[in-house]
């Protein structure tokens, strides 16, 4: 209990004093996670819509795989990305291992199936409502997907936020491909793991509280900007 109280106290002190170390890893966490979320959304949202709208062979199989990939073990993803980016790996020449880019790649792989699967579910329900109208209006395939993505944007924002939530709290994969290097690839989650290992539970908890506050702040900001509650009437 003392550790928790001390952690809260230390978190408040770090935030109030604008601790430079905290600011650096917080900004890096945001930079890596937001970039990964944007890239994964750009891939996952249209993918989910496409699967919802189109009928093709192996469609059920594709949906089952997508759903299964939602539970992809981050450590395994980290290991695979590590092997691919390591000096002897096929992408070793790019020199991306132990950089924020490698962390972004790992996060994109982890959260794209989550975003695609949730958006597929949301778009499938919308498509059931819109199907006859869009066919009747002679909308092209691209127009149908564009319409569904736009009209389902609030549900899709939830899909992206789910991806963001998974990515901001991720530690296994980015620890492996990022290396938790101070002033280079250290982020909030890897710093928490490090401080816990060192036995500095107060600081680890403080960083944890900052991480939770950050996740809540991003969610609140997006909901306020998009007017989710105002728009919930339709």
């Amino acid at each position, binding site marked *: 209990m003392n550790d928790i109280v001390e952690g809260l106290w230390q978190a408040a002190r770090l935030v109030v004093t604008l601790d430079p170390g905290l600011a650096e890893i917080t900004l890096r966490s945001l930079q890596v996670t937001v970039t990964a979320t944007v890239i994964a959304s750009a891939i996952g949202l249209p993918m989910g819509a496409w699967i919802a709208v189109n009928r093709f062979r192996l469609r059920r199989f594709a949906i089952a795989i997508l759903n299964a990939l939602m539970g992809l073990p981050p450590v395994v993803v980290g290991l695979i990305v590590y092997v691919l980016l390591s000096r002897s790996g096929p992408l070793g020449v790019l020199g991306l291992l132990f950089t924020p880019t490698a962390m972004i790649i790992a996060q994109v792989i982890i959260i794209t199936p989550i975003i695609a699967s949730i958006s597929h579910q949301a778009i499938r329900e919308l498509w059931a*409502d*819109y199907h006859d*109208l869009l066919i*009747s209006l*002679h*909308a092209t395939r691209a127009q149908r997907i564009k319409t569904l993505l736009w*009209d389902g944007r609030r549900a899709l924002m939830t899909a992206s936020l789910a991806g963001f939530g998974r990515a901001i709290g991720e530690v296994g994969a980015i620890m492996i491909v990022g290396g938790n290097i101070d002033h280079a690839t250290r982020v909030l989650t890897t710093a928490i793991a490090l401080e816990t290992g060192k036995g500095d539970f107060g600081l680890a908890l403080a960083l944890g509280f900052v991480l939770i506050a950050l996740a809540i702040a991003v969610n609140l900001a997006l909901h306020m900007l998009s007017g989710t509650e105002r728009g919930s009437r*339709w």
Partner: protein
Amino acid sequence: MVSAILPLVLEDVELRRQGKRILGPVSLTLEGEGITVVMGPNGAGKTSLLRAMHGLERINRGRAVWQGGAEDVRARQAFVFQTPVLMRRSVLDCIAYPLILDGVARRDARARGEAAAEEVGLHVTLSAPVSVLSGGERQKMALARALIRAPEVLFLDEPCANLDLHSTAEIERVLTAARDRGTRIVMSTHNVGQARRLADDILFLFDGRLIETGSGDAFFAGPGTPEARAHINGDLLP
């Protein structure tokens, strides 16, 4: 306005779903002008016939052929569903949506949307979400959305189901005006009074088959089948 996509010829059209025949075989030719009313009891195949004509249903046997077979033949038609499809947009954006699909600039599309709303007598806050509309207003919104492209052929599936007399009268006024402008209208209705008021031609379906056709006046003056006679008189059919 004479439609360039008519006549529509249905040759032995049959629809089957899960092994069960739901329509047909039906053969007919839709041409000329005016309002054709599709009548028949529940389950007779009215909605299926309209959807098959419009191309929304897969035809299992026979074929439906529009004049010329143009690629954009469906774009020259419009369909008003019995339950209006409510897009998650404002009323105005719902009405203007077909024009957006056609590539019309948003400002122009919305201006024409306002005119279409006025034309159907939809006097509501057009910036409001479409979900706040009443049943009659939703049907008017759907009608405005269907008419905004000035379709050559307009299909309506029970457009006045569950509407009060005032709303029904307003929708009939809009349909009559559209017919007078040359729009070919094909609609289904359970309302015998409405069919009497609007029908230039009648298609009477029973058990998925087209059992009687003819002018509205002739049909109501002397229906040729016992099923049609019973339907007009409001008798219970077996």
